[in-house]
């Protein structure tokens, strides 16, 4: 399953990249599972996406929760709480 990942603001800076195309292994079927997979990459990923920090996730540009299902071709964005206006 192919996912298009996007990172914004402080998370983009911490990771040093604004996105990637990920070939997700079987079993990565929810936002929570994807986050676990990325946390497993180690240091900077744990700092950027750790459970201690408030994180927002959007799937195909709609706000999503941990249980939101993922499908082939989805765009998944990780970002901190928004501060516009």
């Amino acid at each position, binding site marked *: 399953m192919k996912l298009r990942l*996007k990172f*914004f*603001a*402080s998370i983009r800076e911490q990771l040093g990249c604004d996105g990637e195309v990920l070939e997700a292994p079987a079993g990565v079927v929810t936002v929570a599972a994807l986050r676990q997979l990325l946390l497993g990459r180690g240091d900077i990923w744990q700092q950027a996406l750790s459970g201690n920090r*408030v994180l927002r996730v*959007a799937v195909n*540009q*709609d*706000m999503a929760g941990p249980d939101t299902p993922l499908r082939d071709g989805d765009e998944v*964005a990780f*970002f*901190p*709480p*928004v*501060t*516009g*206006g």
Partner: protein
Amino acid sequence: MPVRVQEQDFDAGAEMSRLRASRADVGAVASFVGVVRDSNDGASVGSMTLEHYPGMTEKSIQAIIDQAKARWKIFDALVIHRVGELKPRDQIVLVAVTGSHRGEAFAACEFIMDFLKTRAPFWKKEQTPQGARWVDARVSDDAAAARWSSTTPKAGM
């Protein structure tokens, strides 16, 4: 276009004139303009950079406008939000709403702004004498948006 995300400044007066001139039954134009302050959380702010999520930004603001239109009898709503580098005194955002009467226009304008602050994917990074820092989301903004889901009707209901 009822939603515009742009680097350049806007003329709030001209935008509101255009909005109300589009129909003769407009009796009220309510608006809000957000401006960059020269200080925040105890530090002086020299400039700020606004980043956004192209595509989702427009989509989320349009969804907020649609909710406002479903909730109040308003005619049109316009949101212009700037991105890129901004300095104190610069305008950041314009929300303008037209309706027959002020109550609904005021309420819808405030609703759109409250939800924009908590739902639309923008992020501010401030330049301060101590260095650059990302602005933290405020709990008070979440509270402002949450009060719209209470059953107590606001003005214009």
